[in-house]
């Protein structure tokens, strides 16, 4: 894909989350311009690629693993990425996404798709990917190399981590940069 073979292949993925972590990524502002010189963004909501590509160097994964589709994608990510980063609280802890874990799936779907204000009806359920019994933090589904907590992780954290990785250094976050929430 990329003409410059030296560029790092970066992917981002959006599982069960609100996309806030991706928004925070966009908040990198001018750093994005610097970044884009060093990396190719090869997959994710920010670019238009249908399939998760091979040979990804770094993948930032937002969101908890909450349905079968998430799980399949998580596995593809693991198989094809060198470094997988749990990106934001939903991926790291399950966070808000996992607040449904106490509720039986059946009750949950009934409440959302049948009793909610705009009923969608049973038919549409057939196209929804099946929910897992519990929304899982990413590392309980696949092996994770680095944790970047925060809801969302602020741009400073993202910059610190990504810069270190691009420079081939070990990522060291100061305590105040690794708080949940």
């Amino acid at each position, binding site marked *: 894909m990329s003409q410059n073979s030296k560029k790092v292949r970066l992917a981002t993925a959006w599982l069960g989350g609100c996309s806030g972590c991706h928004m925070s990524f966009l908040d990198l502002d001018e750093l994005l311009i610097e970044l884009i010189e060093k990396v190719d963004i090869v997959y994710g909501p920010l670019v238009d690629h249908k399939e998760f590509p091979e040979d990804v160097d770094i993948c930032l994964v937002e969101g908890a693993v909450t349905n079968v589709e998430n799980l399949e994608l998580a596995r593809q990510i693991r198989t094809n990425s060198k470094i997988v980063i*749990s990106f934001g*609280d939903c991926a*790291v*802890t*399950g*966070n*808000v996404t*996992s*607040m449904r*874990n*106490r509720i039986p799936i059946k009750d949950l779907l009934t409440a959302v798709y049948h009793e909610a204000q705009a009923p969608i009806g049973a038919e549409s359920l057939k196209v929804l990917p099946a929910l897992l019994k*519990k929304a899982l*933090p990413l*590392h*309980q589904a696949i092996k*994770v190399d680095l*944790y970047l*907590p925060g*809801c969302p992780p602020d741009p400073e954290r993202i910059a610190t981590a990504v810069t270190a990785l691009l420079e081939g250094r070990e990522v060291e976050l100061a*305590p*105040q*940069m*690794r*708080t*949940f*929430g």
Partner: protein
Amino acid sequence: MPVITLTIDDELVSARAGQSILEACREHGIKIPTLCNLDGLSARGGCRLCLVEVAGNPRLLPACTTEALENMVVTTHNEKIDRYRRMILELTFAERNHTCAVCVSNQHCELQTLAAELGMDHVRYDYLNPELGLDTSHARYGVDHNRCVLCLRCVRVCDEVEGAHTWDVKGRGIESRVITDLNRPWGDSESCTECGKCVEVCPTGALFDKGSAVAEMKKEASFLRRILDGREKNEWRR
């Protein structure tokens, strides 16, 4: 008061006889993580974060309840102790629903800070996701059992400092819950003096001022030392 000498982390330090290892460490600026402990309240030894190694003792001992003794050799940090502390935090986070992002105490929470400081960045155990309630029957305060870590600071401050003993614990094991009076809504409590000490000493967002939104609940427990010094050292004259 007689003074004793002991070694903490390879350094010779002095302490007053009768002091706990934790107190001795604090006076010398040696940091040991704690959660259930609070200066001014009785020591409990429940959170297990302040466990230290004492030479000659095969078991790790809680620094808060273990008396510092002459010639004791104490290690407060090493690979094993640090790992255990992180694992204990993992268990604490897995026990209830600490969804930091939507907590009133977000960014002002002792548990959250401990996890960041000790490098506990993910939980490997199953989150237990218990079904827990919220009691907002009190006019001024609320209790959210989802955030409670059972440090029992509220129980102790209410009993030891305020003297009301409104709080206690019901049940046991994983079913333990803090309660007011006969497990009635807090707002109906006959013994509660509404002093709010319990809220201020609570390390997490379990006890909060009503009306606080996410990240708005800041707490200040330093009043405790002032009250106690005033009382015990007769600093406050009548």
